[in-house]
């Protein structure tokens, strides 16, 4: 670990390069630069998760911690290269004073040449990530509506400010659910008439799930408030019966299908590093997310949960 005080972007870049040289390896295997923009509260967990996913995606991780204030501009950096934590490179860069508003100028010399850039805001994100000075470097921008104080409101902001290449971890968290449900529909089934998702209050994955199902199935899907944790139930109703996955305890789910025995599916909540590994697997715009976000209803549903028999279709 190298600690640089009162330094600049170029010096950080050459410190990383000389540390690489000293270890006898090169950066040619690196697949991307990941920019993490976080406050002190989120930066450690986010950096650790990124380092863990760097085992799957060797990359340069730049964690930028803006610390706005009246004091003089100043840049401090902690650098770690290779070693036991994985093949990647990590620089945690703290920007004080006025400099905290100019992270962009610090980052430019640190981006790996000719490889993709991904930006990640584990906490608060700019309203239009794609137009943020840092976000503009990135072809993929990752936010987490779930970390906001008002997640559904945050989802609405992201919906309004969407640019191709945006994605949100509340969508990533749905992948196991979507996979299990898609697998259930690989078998022939009676036409679906309606559906219902039960999610915890303020869970931003709920509206995305509903929107995705409505778009794919073309039938009314309702959102019901549940006790959680997170999403607890998804149910597709057909004349032959329900196809349903319910996960009351946040880890093991039961799959129910008409004319088939119930079966259990392991559907545990995934750690941040697993979510990031999935996010970084593909760097082109996620069009399925774009459609689900566009159709998501970000209003907080009324506490009196609508009955699933309600839609008269």
């Amino acid at each position, binding site marked *: 670990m190298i600690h640089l005080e009162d330094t600049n972007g170029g010096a950080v870049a050459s410190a990383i390069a000389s540390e690489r040289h000293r270890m006898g390896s090169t950066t*040619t*295997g*690196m*697949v991307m630069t990941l920019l993490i923009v976080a406050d002190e509260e989120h930066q450690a967990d986010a950096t650790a998760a990124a380092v863990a996913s760097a*085992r*799957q*995606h*060797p990359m340069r991780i730049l964690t930028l911690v803006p610390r706005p204030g009246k004091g003089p501009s100043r840049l401090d950096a902690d650098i770690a290269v290779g070693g036991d934590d*994985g*093949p990647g490179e990590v620089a945690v860069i703290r920007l004080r004073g006025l400099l905290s508003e100019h992270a962009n100028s610090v980052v430019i010399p640190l981006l790996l040449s000719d490889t993709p850039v991904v930006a990640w805001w584990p906490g608060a994100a700019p309203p239009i990530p794609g137009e943020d000075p840092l976000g503009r470097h990135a072809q993929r921008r990752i936010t987490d509506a779930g970390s906001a104080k008002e997640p559904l409101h945050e989802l609405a902001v992201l919906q309004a400010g969407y640019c191709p290449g945006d994605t949100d971890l509340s969508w*990533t968290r749905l*992948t*196991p659910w*979507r*996979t*299990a*449900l*898609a*697998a259930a*529909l*690989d*078998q*022939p*089934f*009676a*036409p*679906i008439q309606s559906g219902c998702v039960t999610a915890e209050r303020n869970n931003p994955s709920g509206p995305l799930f509903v929107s995705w*199902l409505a778009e*794919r*199935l*073309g039938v009314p899907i309702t959102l019901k408030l549940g006790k959680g944790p997170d999403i607890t139930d998804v149910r597709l109703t057909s*004349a*032959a019966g329900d196809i349903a996955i319910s996960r009351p305890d946040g*880890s*093991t789910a039961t*799959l129910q*299908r008409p004319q*088939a*025995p119930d*079966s*259990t*599916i*392991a559907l*545990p909540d995934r750690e941040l590093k697993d979510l990031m590994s*999935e996010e970084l*697997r*593909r760097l082109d715009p*996620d*069009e*399925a997310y774009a459609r689900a976000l566009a159709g998501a209803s970000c209003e907080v549903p009324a506490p009196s949960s609508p009955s699933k028999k309600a839609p008269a279709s």
Partner: protein
Amino acid sequence: MADTPLVTTNPLRADDDRRIPRVAGPCSLVLFGVTGDLSRKKVMPAIYDLANRGYLPPGFALVGFARRDWEDQDFAQVVHDAVREYARTPFREDVWQQLAKGLRFVAGDLANENAYLDLKRVVDELDASRGTGGNHAFYLSIPPGFFPVVLQHLHTSGLATSAPGAWKRVVIEKPFGHDLKSAEELNHIVEEVFPPSSVFRIDHYLGKETVQNILAVRFANTMFEPLWNSNYVDNVQITQAEDIGIGGRASYYDGIGAARDVIQNHLLQLLALTAMEEPLSFESSAIRQEKEKVLSAVQLPRELDLHTVRGQYGPGLQGGVPVKGFLEETGISPKSTTETYAAIRVNVDNRRWASVPFYLRTGKRLGRRVTEVAIVFKRAPHLPFAQSSVQELSNNALVFRIQPDEGITLRFGSKVPSTSLVEVRDVNMDFQYGDTFVDTSPEAYERLILDVLLGDPPLFPRSREVELSWKILDPILTRWADQGAPESYVSGGWGPHSAYTMIARDGRTWRRP
């Protein structure tokens, strides 16, 4: 409502939704030969890893079949131990519990008709209790001598018959016969019971990422394919070397030998992927077509004695450890003439490869464990340097490292930094799979088993490919059959002396892998 037709296309799957993986539909895998090394070290862990990655259906079942006095829970213990020891993904109790519910065991002799009726009952019970829907894959991890009897019983017991909308598949491991005639017989026996599209021949090499990457590198880039012909390529060297001896495989290995064990399947498949023309698409039928074409174009040299070499490892030191010679191994006859090293030269008779020799070699107890395909390019036609400047420059080479250190090496000349003299020396540019895509690559068996369950055959050779490979090898094996003892070579080196003279005869040298 009973009249409403069922929906058979899945509306939740969209081409641009790449987060949702293809998951196998309801099915079971019936494993014959559960006590074998391969079952315990590869198949069972791969099944757990697939379950852990979420690729198996919720009601998946694994049925063991063996001549053991076991109950379901004894079998579950065997699988559990195998998973704990060999699985690549972390052990998770919830995943294991889910898998364990679908474990069944059928005790019986492979030749006993009644055991198959028991198996049929278990399979039917699974259809009811686990919803496997009549979809079952039979994995024959047993010596090929048992194939006829097992297949016959699968047939007569009705296990091999698929109901409409359901499938039955059979998985067999190499060796696919020991010569052309036996391979044809085997194919005949298997395909009498199962249609060709339901027969999955597992060659685990073909499941390796790096092997599949040969086609990706060749056909997804612009800069390699223009050089991929006899104008630029001097020769191709395909090597599979092991540092270990035959270990506990004496009974299998004696009488089989290196050529049948490795060249017939792995090396000729690597040759096919390296030399084939661009397929029309990456559909399995298109790739198979090109592979079959190029294998049909393979020609043996006329003087087999001059261009093939067989060897047998003698005692020696391997990395400083004293090791036995082949003839001293337990279970090997001291008079055995089985080869443990084989090298052959072949040509591919088409315009692209006219006059480019392909050297294939494999052996046990060699210098280190390595599998690679090396494309060795011609020297530059003119070198505008003083002779002394390029003394240390050899041929450019592109090497696919299949294992270990999977990746690609590109070797070319570069100037040695110095103020006065120009000196050009070989340098290597390296792409390490492990550095760029770590951990994500599934183990070959995982991939192959999933492909079996999905019914996706691109990585599995069909009977015609197998027969074409034997056609190539048969004349060599016949020539070798009456030549007595193979040349002995010292363990821990790179094979018999005659291997060096064989390639030197063509004015070339082996690459040290």
